[in-house]
C-alpha cells in the first residue's frame, strides 16, 4: 500500500522500527513480567530524536504533526504496546500546552520535552469521572498569585515517571464542566504526591498511578488558557490524541499478524504447515485486511488533525474505535492460530492480546465514542460534507 508519506516520515518510521527491534524486543517480555517502567528505552527514544517529531521547530522539535507521532507509536507498539503508550502519553501531556499555551510557557517547557529530558502526562480521570469527564471533583481555588489544588487523579499514564503534568481541575464548582481549567504542575511541587501504582492486565511496562494534590500551590503562570476553558481544551486534545491510540492498536495488530503468520508457516500438523489449511489462510487474509483498513483510517484521521480542520471529533473517534476493535480481534485470532503455544508466555501473542484490550477502553471507551459519532451523524443528518 502506498501511504504517501514524506521522506522525513519514512525516515521516522524506519528509525522507530530499528529502535523497537534493537532495543525493545530483547527486553519486552521481562518488562511485562516485572511491570517495570522502560527508562532506558525512553532514553534511547530521546537520543534518536523521536520526542522531537511532533513539536514545532522553534521549540527544538522537527516540526511534524499528529501523523509523525502516529508513525512512531505504531512502530513501537508493533513490538511493545506498553512502551508505545509511555511515549504516546507524552504527546497527550503536551498537546494542550502546544495548542493553547503562551509563548512564555511553550519556551519554558517544550524544548525539554522535545529533547526527551522531561516526560509529560495528562490528568483528567478520577474515581468518579471516567467517560463522564465532567464529573471531576479536583478543585483549584484562586488565591493570591495562583491556585491551590486539592483532589486525587486516578489511572494516570506516566504517573510518577513524568516531570510535567497537565492537570484538569475545577476553578468554579458551580459551573460543572464549564468551571474546569488546565494547569501545568511540575513533579516535586509541594503538596503534589503519588498514590497507588496500579497492577494491570496489559501494557504492564507503562506506569499507571494516582496523583494526589493536598493544598498544592500552582502559580498563575502555570494555567493554560483562560479559566473555564479546561473542558473544551480537553475535548480538542482528545480528538487530536485518539489517532495515537489508533496507531497503538494498528501496531499491536500488525505485530500479532506477523507472529501468527510466522508460526503458521512453521507449525506442522497432519503433515503440512498450518498455512496449507484454507481455514487458516482465510483467517490470516482477513486479519491482514483488517489491519490495513485500520491503518488507513488512522493515518487519514491523523492527516485530518494536521490539516488544520476546526473539528474532527468524528474522524478521530471512528479511527480509534475501528482500530482498537481490530486490535482485539486480530490479537485474539493470532492466539487462536498459535494454539496452545500462543496461550503460553513464551510466545508474544499472549501479551499482545492482553495489551489490546485497553485500546478499546481508554481515551474514550468505544461505547462513548460511538455515541459521539452518532451525535455528529445526527447533526449532519447522515450527509457527508
Amino acid at each position, binding site marked *: 500500500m502506498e501511504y504517501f508519506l514524506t521522506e522525513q516520515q519514512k525516515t521516522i518510521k524506519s528509525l522507530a522500527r530499528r529502535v523497537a527491534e534493537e532495543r525493545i524486543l530483547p527486553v519486552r517480555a521481562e518488562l511485562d513480567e516485572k511491570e517495570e517502567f522502560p527508562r532506558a528505552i525512553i532514553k534511547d527514544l530521546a537520543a534518536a*530524536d523521536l520526542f522531537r517529531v511532533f513539536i514545532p521547530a522553534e521549540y527544538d522539535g522537527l516540526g511534524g504533526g499528529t501523523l509523525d507521532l502516529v508513525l512512531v507509536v505504531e512502530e513501537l507498539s508493533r513490538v511493545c504496546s506498553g512502551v508505545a503508550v509511555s511515549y504516546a502519553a507524552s504527546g497527550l501531556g503536551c498537546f494542550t500546552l502546544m495548542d493553547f499555551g503562551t509563548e512564555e510557557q511553550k519556551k519554558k517547557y517544550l524544548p525539554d520535552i522535545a529533547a526527551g529530558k522531561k516526560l509529560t502526562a495528562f490528568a483528567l480521570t478520577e474515581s468518579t469521572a471516567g467517560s463522564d469527564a465532567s464529573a471531576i471533583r479536583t478543585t483549584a481555588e484562586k488565591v493570591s498569585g495562583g491556585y491551590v489544588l486539592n483532589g486525587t487523579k486516578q489511572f494516570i499514564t506516566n504517573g510518577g515517571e513524568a516531570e510535567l503534568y497537565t492537570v484538569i481541575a475545577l476553578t468554579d464548582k458551580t459551573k460543572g464542566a464549564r468551571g474546569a481549567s488546565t494547569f501545568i504542575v511540575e513533579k516535586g511541587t509541594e503538596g503534589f504526591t503519588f498514590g497507588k501504582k496500579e497492577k494491570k492486565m496489559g501494557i504492564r511496562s507503562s506506569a499507571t498511578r494516582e496523583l494526589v494534590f493536598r493544598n498544592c500551590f500552582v502559580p498563575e503562570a502555570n494555567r493554560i488558557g483562560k479559566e473555564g476553558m479546561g473542558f473544551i481544551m480537553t475535548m480538542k486534545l482528545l480528538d487530536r490524541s485518539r489517532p495515537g491510540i489508533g496507531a497503538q492498536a494498528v501496531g499491536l495488530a500488525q505485530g500479532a499478524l506477523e507472529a501468527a503468520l510466522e508460526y503458521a508457516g512453521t507449525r506442522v500438523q497432519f503433515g503440512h504447515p498450518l498455512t496449507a489449511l484454507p481455514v487458516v489462510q482465510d483467517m490470516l487474509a482477513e486479519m491482514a485486511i483488517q489491519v490495513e483498513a485500520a491503518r488507513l483510517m488512522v493515518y487519514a484521521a491523523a492527516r485530518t488533525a494536521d490539516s488544520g480542520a476546526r473539528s474532527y471529533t468524528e474522524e478521530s473517534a471512528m479511527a480509534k474505535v475501528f482500530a482498537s476493535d481490530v486490535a482485539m480481534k486480530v490479537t485474539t485470532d493470532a492466539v487462536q492460530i498459535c494454539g496452545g503455544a500462543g496461550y503460553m508466555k513464551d510466545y508474544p501473542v499472549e501479551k499482545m492480546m492482553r495489551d489490546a484490550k485497553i485500546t478499546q477502553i481508554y481515551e474514550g471507551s468505544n461505547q462513548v465514542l460511538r455515541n459521539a459519532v452518532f451525535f455528529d451523524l445526527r447533526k449532519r443528518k447522515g450527509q457527508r460534507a
Partner: protein
Amino acid sequence: MNIIVCLKQVPGTTEVKIDPNTNTLVRQGVKGIINPLDTYALEEGVRLKERFGGEVTVISMGPPQAAEMLREAISLGADKAVLLSDSAFAGADTLATALTLAAAIKKLGACDMVICGRQTIDGDTGQVGPELAEMLEVAFVAYVSKVEEVANGLMRVRRMIEEGHEVIEASLPALITVVKEINVPRLPSLRGIAKSKGAVIPVWTARDLGIDPNAVGLAGSATRVVKVFTPQRVSKGEVLSGDLAAQVDTVVSKLKSAGLI
C-alpha cells in the same frame, strides 16, 4: 578536544565467500557496513566530544562507496568526514594503509586523540592502529575499555589485558584502540540523519595527501597475500568406548606410540 576516528567499511556478513580463482573476498551483493569494532571507536569519540567538547572527524580509506558509511557515521554523531580514495590505494596491506591514514591525519592538522577499533572483522590483523601510532609518533594504548579522564594534556585510560586490566596515563596526542566493552554504540538520531544527508564529504587522493603512489596500495605493501582459503573441515575424531580405565589405557598407548609421551 579534536578527535579523529578511523573507520573501515567491511562486508556486512560473517559468511563471506572466497573466490577460488582469485583468492579474494566475494564482495558483490554484500552490503557494506561499518566494521563492528569501529562503531565502538566512533561512539567513544562522540562521547568524549560530549564530555570535553571539541569535534569528531571520521576518516576512511576505501572505494567511493565507503562515503555512504561515512555519512552514516555523521548520523551517529561525527561532525565531519573525509574519504581517502584513489586507485593507487587498492590492495594495501596494514603498513600501506597506516601510511595513508597517517598522511591524512597530518593533513587534518592538530588533533588530541585518534581512536581505532581493536581490529577489523575482515582482515583481523589488529595492526593498523599500532602502526599508525608509530608513524604519527604519538603515545599508543591498545584494548582500551574505559577512558577515565582527559585533562591537562594527559589521558588516563583503562586497558584490558588477559589477567585483568591496567590503568595507564599517557600524554596527548595519543592513539587508542578500543574493545567492545568500552560502550554501547547509539542508534542514529533524526537530526543526525538530516545532517548526514546534507554533509559534503571530501575525497582525498594520493596527490592530495602529497604521498608517492608507489608508497601506498599494493606497491607500498610489505606483505603479499599468497593464498586465501577455507580450511578443510577436520574429520570427526575417534570416540573411545568401554569403561573409564580401558579408555585411559587406550589414550596412553596412543600418545606413547605417537611419541608424545
